């Protein structure tokens, strides 16, 4: 039942919020609502950990003639993703308070609608329902980026939409095809889809279609061209939702059913996928070093980091897969933190060009400290959340192939280079006329960062709690590879 509440609550909130008129009330309502949602997720987490491992299952008939049922539940992996989503959405809402968006009711309503769709993706145990939520998430994302975005937003978001929609349609074809290969009576239930009997050729095609859909969302090189423009053109909240949560849908989809369904093709083409992902890592890192816009730099760094996660997924070893799961959580937290910092700097100085900033640490020490912590998490320093994930990912890749691990390991060096360089040139040094008048974080702004910083350190120090939750399910996914 908790699972259904997790989906329905944000939907309900997003409908109610349209009716509210005063901006302040809208914000408070959105924040309170998303916190309640987080509370429900925590309750589900506790229930899962303590009393039952019954996957919090909910089943109801929907289109029984077509083998579609409303089957929602959570295993360890979904649970972590749901926790990430429900944790980040209040943070994102709180971070949006600093902006006075036009039409606030629509804005916050769309964020909550997006939360509903994202949660739905992570808890669906039925292929078609998964697909419906997957597409549904695109609509609010499109409108958030297109209506409240920056310059050239119409062209950029349209490219984003066409790109991801086309990818999803390939997934739909594969899904429908798969449906007819499931044992009788056909069903979209994940267990049925896993049991589909496929010839090697069919596996290859289905793998190709799924990979395209997921790789566009993640994005994996060379399908990433929509990403930097979209992230930098979107409003802060939009970039956070896309980078923090939405791209995890792609990796989640790979783990959840691409690997179990076409396990032979996955094994066969794993090296190709890893090569693409690693190419993306190096390529994006090199470009990131050359960026002068902070937001674009972070966008490219995200391609590199996510490339490592994808490479880890295809390494198909327990370590790498565990690393991928935990790194999805960490990456979400870190990138949201980075986007908030950039947003604050941009709002106060009017620019996010690295060259025209400098010396912010002198004027805003609290901002500098917070930025440093998030940055360290993102370059995977030990005792921060990024470390455990990247360590496991590289370890797993190493088990797969030493060469790949060595090249992928460059990501740590590269990310240290561009991140610290960005920090040095914006935060340290002398102040100039743009940064002279910058004020430090107010207490309400600190409130945005406190949960993020706590999580960065918590996951860094005690990753066990999170790793344990996902472990049995990761092993189960890998069981299909044999």
């Amino acid at each position, binding site marked *: 039942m908790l699972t259904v509440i997790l989906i329905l609550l944000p939907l309900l909130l997003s409908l109610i919020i349209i009716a509210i008129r005063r901006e302040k009330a809208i914000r408070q309502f959105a924040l309170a609502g998303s916190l309640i949602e987080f509370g429900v997720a925590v309750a589900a987490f506790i229930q899962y950990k303590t009393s039952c491992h019954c996957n919090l299952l909910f089943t109801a*008939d*929907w*289109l*029984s*003639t*077509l083998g579609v049922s409303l089957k929602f539940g959570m295993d360890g992996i979904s649970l972590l993703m749901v926790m990430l989503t429900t944790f980040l959405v209040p943070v994102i809402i709180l971070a949006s308070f600093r902006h006075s968006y036009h039409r606030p009711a629509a804005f916050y309503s769309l964020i909550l609608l997006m939360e509903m769709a994202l949660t739905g993706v992570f808890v669906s145990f039925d292929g*078609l329902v998964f*697909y*419906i939520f997957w*597409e*549904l998430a*695109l*609509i609010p994302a499109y*409108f958030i980026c*297109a*209506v409240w975005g920056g310059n050239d*937003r*119409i062209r950029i978001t*349209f490219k984003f*939409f*066409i790109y991801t*929609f*086309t990818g999803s*349609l*390939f997934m*739909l*074809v594969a899904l*429908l*095809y798969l*449906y*007819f290969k499931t044992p009788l009576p056909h069903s979209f239930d994940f267990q049925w889809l896993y049991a589909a009997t496929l010839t090697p050729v069919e596996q290859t095609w289905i793998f190709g279609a799924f990979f395209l859909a997921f790789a566009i969302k993640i994005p994996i090189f060379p399908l990433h061209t929509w990403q930097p423009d979209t992230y930098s053109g979107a409003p802060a909240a939009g970039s956070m939702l896309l980078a923090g949560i939405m791209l995890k849908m792609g990796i989640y989809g790979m783990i959840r059913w691409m690997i179990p369904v076409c396990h032979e093709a996955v094994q066969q083409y794993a090296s190709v996928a890893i090569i693409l992902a690693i190419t993306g890592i190096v390529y994006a890192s090199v470009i990131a070093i050359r960026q002068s816009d902070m937001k674009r730099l972070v966008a490219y760094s995200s391609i590199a980091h996510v490339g490592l996660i994808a490479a880890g997924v295809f390494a198909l070893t327990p370590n790498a897969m565990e690393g991928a799961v935990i790194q999805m959580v960490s990456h979400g937290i870190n990138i949201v933190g980075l986007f908030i910092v950039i947003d604050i700097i941009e709002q106060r100085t009017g620019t996010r060009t690295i060259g025209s900033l400098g010396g912010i640490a002198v004027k805003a020490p609290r901002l500098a400290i917070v930025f440093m912590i998030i940055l360290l998490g993102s370059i995977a320093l030990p005792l921060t959340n990024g470390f455990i994930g990247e360590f496991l990912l590289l370890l797993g890749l190493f088990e797969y192939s030493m060469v790949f691990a060595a090249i992928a390991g460059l990501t740590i060096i590269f990310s240290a280079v561009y991140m610290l360089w960005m920090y040095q040139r914006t935060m340290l040094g002398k102040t100039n006329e743009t940064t002279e008048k910058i004020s430090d974080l107010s207490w309400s702004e600190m409130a945005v960062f406190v949960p993020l910083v706590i999580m960065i350190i918590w996951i860094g120090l005690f990753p066990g709690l999170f790793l344990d939750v996902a472990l049995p399910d990761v092993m189960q996914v890998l069981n299909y590879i044999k």
Partner: protein
Amino acid sequence: MTTIISLTILGVLVLFLGIMKKQSWLLPVILLGLVVSMGLTIMDWNTFKVYYHEMIVVDNVSVAFSTVLIFSAFLIFSLASHYYRGVQRPLDDIFGVMIFALAGAVMMTSYGNLIMLFLGIETLSIALYVLAGSHKEAITSNEATLKYFLLGSFLSGFLLFGIALIYGSSGTFDLQKISVYVSSCAGDYPPMFLAGLFLLIIGLAFKIAIVPFHFWAPDVYEGTPTLLTAFMATVVKTASIVAMFRFFTHTFQGIHGAWETTIWVMAAFTILLGNLTGVYQPNLKRMLAYSSISHSGYMLLAVVAFSPMSENALLLYTLSYSIATISAFGILILIREAHGNDYFSSLNGMAKTNPLEAFCLTVAMLSLAGIPPLAGFMAKYYLFTTALEKGLVWLVIVAIAGSAISVAYYFKPIMAMYLKESNGVKLEVETSYKVHLFFMTMLIILIGLLPFLLIGLL
């Protein structure tokens, strides 16, 4: 049969009201009459009946599609009072002819004999030639009716010639007997029969606006008064595709051989060409014309993938397509009224000035584009499942590629309404019209969420 009779009586009644100069009674009587005749139609559910030596066959398929047709007509008539407000001339002729056209459409869904099919098509078409030119003062309307009439009568000749050739080889007009003849041929058909079949397909393809017989559609749609364009794009298309579907199901028990490839290729080209050309249209009405062409292609999928499921898939598809299209035309009417044109720039900033109308148009566009969880997605999904079950993988891939392309133009009005600066014109809409638009939008959402109410009917 009761449907056809009741609609004919309704049509005559409307003309009588015109003679008695009761113009204000027209619409209430029509709407009530349509509801009654819809009720009479539904009462025939699960009662298999044949009339006049199997000229008319009333089975569940014909009941279901007749209901869709009458419902579409009901939705269109509900827009009429706004569309024709301020018009001084009597309207009983236009409305009467529309209802006769509807009766023709119903005949096309329940024929058991090729003569009846021809009568139905002609009743529908002749009414439409008149309706297309019903805006007598406008030169575009005259152009539309002339084009439609010249091409339409020419293609009716094809159809009749096709029927004659089929008669020549099989010796009967009756679908059942043709079916017997088909099975006696055992796959080896005489050339005359095949030629007749292809001419018949061409005649119907013209009415449905299938590539390469679609050239009339954009021009005729653009010139025809908008309310009647909605009628053409929904009622006429549904009736014609059902007629084609019925012909193949009753005579061939499915579709195979040479005409399977023919229809396959036609469907693929219709989807691709309709969608690709749709991208380059400068205004909403032409865009909707190409949208309707591409949707004919999707509906053809149901004909190619003949199976017990495909009747149902077609039902869901025609219904969701009709509602979304009528809803879009409903807003198009408002836009043309306020701006005098319907270029996409006229929609700029509508989300600010008319949030409800913008929302309704958005839902209609998203549904036509097939984005979940709206009706259009469910219909497409069901149709694709049907086609895949028949192993039509490549056709489904073409159809899905077409859907991806279609997003490019379905998003044009959405982008204009939500992302462009307003041009300051507020559409004047009375509450009843708003309620009607909202009702259709809700239907689109509800069919998307509760498709099981319609799936499994047939």
